[in-house]
């Protein structure tokens, strides 16, 4: 797949990037208007990572996601209306109102779930890859996590198990430069987080996380290596979250100028320019991608709003599987 020259792939990738952006803008708006409760972790500005990474996967592959996981879900093919219904506390939501933003999973698309615990999904991805390997399948597990996860014990244990067992896992770090307010400069003594891979005897590579074709290409190579039995790879995608960590964030730990500099690296604008320059899509076509995304999100909000509220009647019987 060539995200620069293949028009169909490009259309799909650009539409998905816009869908993630519009979905999260809608969430931000609903929250601001008091129509959504709880908290939200938005990934606006990071869209190239989930879209590029998921474009490198095949049907049957697994992903694990994070508390900032809307983009992963959408890029892996989750239904927008069921995601929005979950956030709006509806019975038709992916988790029937029991999980919310941080726990959406879509097992049908191999999405084993967002995770409220930083690095929680890392050993889980190793285990999913182990399951496939034990069954003699060709599945790959791709684990999304942020820079903060790379200092968690679970990350080290999960990566090491995948390394010593040559498991087909791609560990993809969305290094958005901050773990809440903690900058990577204060939290690490390595220049590139990918250097950590050497400690586990696996390849580590750093890629521009705002360049969707570059992310796709890098992850694709890692996926192919994993599928061929070569073991795990650690991909660090450097990007930036435009919005605060969550709803409590007053941006006291970074400057307006810094945010502005990164906004100039808007992954959607960059990809659009690349496609126009390459002649892969016309301006009309890229605008159509944007319009399709807006309409899909509007439709999801309409459908979700019309759904019944999540019901408490079956709460206690929902704890255990039958």
């Amino acid at each position, binding site marked *: 797949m060539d995200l620069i020259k293949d028009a169909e792939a490009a259309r799909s990738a650009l539409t998905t990037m816009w869908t993630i952006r519009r979905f999260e803008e809608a969430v931000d708006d609903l929250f601001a208007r008091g129509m959504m409760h709880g908290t939200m972790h938005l990934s606006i500005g990071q869209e190239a990572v989930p879209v590029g990474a998921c474009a490198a996967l095949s049907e049957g592959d*697994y992903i*694990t996601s994070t508390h900032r996981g809307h983009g992963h879900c959408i890029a892996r093919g989750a239904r927008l209306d069921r995601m929005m219904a979950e956030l709006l506390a509806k019975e038709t*939501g*992916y*988790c*029937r*109102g*029991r*999980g919310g933003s941080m*726990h959406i*999973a*879509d*097992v049908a698309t191999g999405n*084993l*779930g967002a*995770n*409220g*615990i930083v690095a*929680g999904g*890392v*050993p*889980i*991805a*190793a*285990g*999913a*890859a*182990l*399951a*496939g390997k*034990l*069954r*003699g399948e060709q599945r790959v*597990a791709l684990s999304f996590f942020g820079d903060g996860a790379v200092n968690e*014990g*679970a990350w080290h*244990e*999960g990566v*090491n*198990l995948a390394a*010593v067992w040559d498991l087909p896992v791609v560990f993809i770090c969305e290094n958005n430069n901050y773990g809440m307010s903690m900058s990577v400069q204060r939290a690490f003594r390595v220049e590139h987080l990918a250097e950590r891979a050497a400690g586990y005897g696996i390849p580590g590579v750093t890629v521009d996380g705002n360049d969707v074709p570059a992310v796709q290409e890098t992850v694709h190579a890692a996926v192919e290596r994993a599928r061929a039995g070569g073991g795990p790879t650690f991909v660090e995608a450097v990007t930036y979250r435009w919005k605060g960590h969550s709803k409590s964030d007053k941006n006291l730990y970074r400057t307006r100028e810094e945010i502005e500099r990164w906004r100039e690296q808007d992954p959607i604008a960059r990809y659009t320019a690349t496609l126009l320059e390459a002649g892969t899509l016309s301006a009309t076509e890229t605008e159509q991608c944007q319009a399709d995304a807006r309409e899909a999100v509007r439709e999801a909000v309409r459908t979700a709003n019309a759904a019944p509220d999540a019901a408490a009647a079956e709460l206690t019987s*929902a*704890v*255990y*599987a*039958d």
Partner: protein
Amino acid sequence: MTTTLPTAGPAAATQPLPADPAERSITYAEAVREALAEAMQADSRVFLLGEDIGVYGGAFGVTGDLVHRFGEDRVRDTPISELGIVGAAVGAALAGMRPIVEIQFSDFTAQAMDQIANQAAKIHFMLGGAASVPLVLRAPSGSGTGAAAQHSQSLETWFAHIPGLKVVMPATAADAKGLLLAAVDDPNPVIVLEHKLLYKQSGPVPAGAGRVPLGQAAVRRQGQDLAIVATGVMVSRAMEAAQQLAEDGITSTVIDPRTLVPLDEATIISAVAATGRALLVQEAPQNCGYMAEIAARIADSEAFGCLRAPVRRLSGLDVPVPYAPQLERAAVPQVPDIVAEATRLVRSW
């Protein structure tokens, strides 16, 4: 890709069978191993992972020769990495396997607690039922081996307090096998706390003995004067105490709940209602222990009106388990303690 190891032969694991299989007696550890072997034999999704469970045979010798019989892929030695091990088991379970984890000492579950409490226990509920985590976590539990405070705890209450986990405490060889087989069948995460003092104890396990359903207490002995509820290694101590009490004219019903979650409350309530007295015995420290829950359930039930005496708890001291043998014995209930407490309960009320 199964690695073939020099095989010791299947016969090495099992004792020679006596003439009448129904009378066969094997150790608790052998019973666990038999369940593991049967589960793996019956279902290709079942595999084991844990520290030193391969050629070493397990820290307590439970897995024994299973690696020779089932290969290194399915009897998977892991690095010392409890959080990673349980996390990998959660992932494998989500992806359709039936992993059985051995955590070398139950104390080490503290290292894995995020994956146990925040992941395994909650995934089915948080995901609105879209997925389940059928994993079994076995862990040697309890004191009595001189291993001191970080290798001797009874942590069942930690797990019982978290909705989404099931908690099993087998007290006999037959239950060690039957409850484990039921745990493997269960679509939920099940914590099986095996008692390390019981591993070498033998008991009747009829050949072909099957599952013991989770949530069904065992009435080990019937009596008139009091009901003793005991868990883990305290079951055999309660039975020994009951024998001595009987010689002194006090007869006891001894109940082994076998699973704490789900709990067979009805059997306990009816025994307490019938005798009017309840003595609740656990090895774990008393404060917020599981027997406090049983006491509360008795107080909440129709047995309350039948009580002729206060509900008494006999527990471990609220201290870390000490090293010196005399201190270790003093820290947890022994047979004479149960006899004395039961006698006091019956004779004073």
